């Protein structure tokens, strides 16, 4: 009874290491294609539109809601200690350092990451990638590279928007609903957050998240089985793997560099 279990464990470990190796080679291949000509600027812009512009409404709305809740919770907690003047700092710091990058990454995974994986997996199923190969066009260069690069680029931009809308949400609740002075809100925000120590590291973190989402979504789509269940597995796999990786990397980055 124990041997099959060990065998199974060995088999699964081997599969895991195998897929990690495949992922590493795939990632290097994408980077190589993105770095070497031909540069597919037009396709890159189209992908930025798909991944970024079409995610705007969901990111802005969610940011506003998260900021409003933070304002409400922050005020309720701080007022007990007579420190409600610091609502701006609490909302701002938690958004810039943690919630902004992580929540935006999770939203992008759900909206653009899953769509990217599903789109590439569908291209596998309908032989579109094979069609490209038969035209001597490398699908990694033509399809995967622009999509992965677009996810990398849109992540910091969407995070910045998320944070701005969240700050507006916090302002609405703290100042307009709960009666905090507007000047106090912004003064505490300004004194707590610095560009070099908070915003730049935060945006760097979003670049790591963008790379993770881009590579995972395209890899899952590219290596999917050419069936409808393969498309569904690629989509689900992207959401699960990318979400877990973002949260794990968030901890590692924060622990190592205090970002």
């Amino acid at each position, binding site marked *: 009874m124990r041997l099959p279990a060990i065998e199974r464990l060995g088999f699964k470990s081997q599969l895991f290491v195998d897929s990690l190796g495949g992922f590493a080679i795939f990632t290097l291949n994408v980077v190589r294609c993105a770095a070497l000509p031909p540069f597919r600027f037009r396709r890159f812009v189209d992908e930025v539109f798909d991944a970024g512009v079409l995610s705007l409404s969901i990111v802005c709305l969610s940011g506003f809601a998260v900021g409003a809740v933070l304002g409400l919770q922050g005020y309720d907690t701080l007022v007990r200690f007579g420190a409600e003047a610091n609502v701006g700092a609490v909302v701002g710091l938690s958004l810039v350092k943690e919630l902004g990058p992580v929540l935006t990454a999770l939203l992008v995974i759900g909206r653009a990451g899953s769509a990217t994986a599903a789109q590439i997996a569908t*291209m596998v199923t*309908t*032989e*579109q990638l*094979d*069609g*490209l*190969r*038969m*035209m*001597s*066009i*490398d699908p990694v260069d033509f399809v995967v590279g622009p999509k992965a690069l677009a996810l990398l680029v849109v992540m910091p931009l969407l995070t910045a928007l998320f944070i701005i809308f969240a700050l507006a949400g916090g302002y609405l609740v703290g100042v307009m609903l709960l009666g905090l002075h507007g000047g106090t809100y912004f003064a505490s925000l300004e004194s707590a957050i610095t560009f070099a120590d908070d915003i730049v590291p935060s945006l760097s973190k979003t670049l790591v998240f963008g790379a993770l989402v881009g590579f995972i979504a395209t890899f899952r789509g590219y290596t999917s089985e050419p069936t409808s269940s393969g498309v569904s597995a690629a989509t689900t796999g992207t959401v699960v793997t990318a979400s877990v990786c973002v949260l794990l990397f968030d901890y590692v980055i924060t622990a190592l560099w205090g970002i």
Partner: protein
Amino acid sequence: MSTEPGQDFRVALDGVYLKRGDRQVLRGLSCGFPRGRISIVLGGSGCGKSTLMRLVGGLTRPDRGIVRVAGEDITRMSNRALFRIRERIGMLFQGGALLDSMTVFDNVALPLREHSKLSETEIRAAVSSRLDSVGLEQVEGLYPRELSGGMNRRVALARAIVTDPEIVMVDEPFSGLDPVNVRRIEALLVELNRRLGITLVVTSHHLASSLRMADRIVFMVDGRAISGTPETLLASDDRRIVEFLEAEKDQSTEQFTARIGAFPASGGME
């Protein structure tokens, strides 16, 4: 008719074995497709016709055996080298394989934009001419999802031949087409072959068209191939071929049989 041994095969498979999951699809498949001729691959569903196409394109690697394209063994070729070989091949996939994010025009223009130095005006003219030749007009701005299955495949055929490749592989070009368009595509393929000397490999269920067009027939059964001319195919007393022909027989077959008269034909099936 070209069945002589030792002839110049532009594409050849030698003792190819391939297993998919638990199913042994090919069991020592050996066949050749002569330069500048039209070869038709016939066989029942699931006999491995599309797999043969993928093997020739280097999209699937055999478990055992050799695949030669334009004189080069592609079996263990690197992906980079395969891209070089594929520039000489045009392939029509069974489902069309058009890029659904691009218009018909951009799909057909893609190989020219990637591999030629033609100006945009020249590309526009080449695309229009190819679309005309497959009987499609006013579709350049449409997306593949806006086309019927038959139109989709005709666009894909236009894309496969737009660069005038020396070898064209066509997987089921007639399925889903009305009789007028079957004749049109058949005439186009024959014209391409006769005018440009393209080596044409066509898989088909459409027996009448196959018999009209073929210089050579490769009949796939049990993961192997039986090759010969249309005449030798019709004259064959191999039970598997007779069964297939009986099932597929239609008026055109009988017309063809009447036209070429009674057999025995010279040279039996290989």
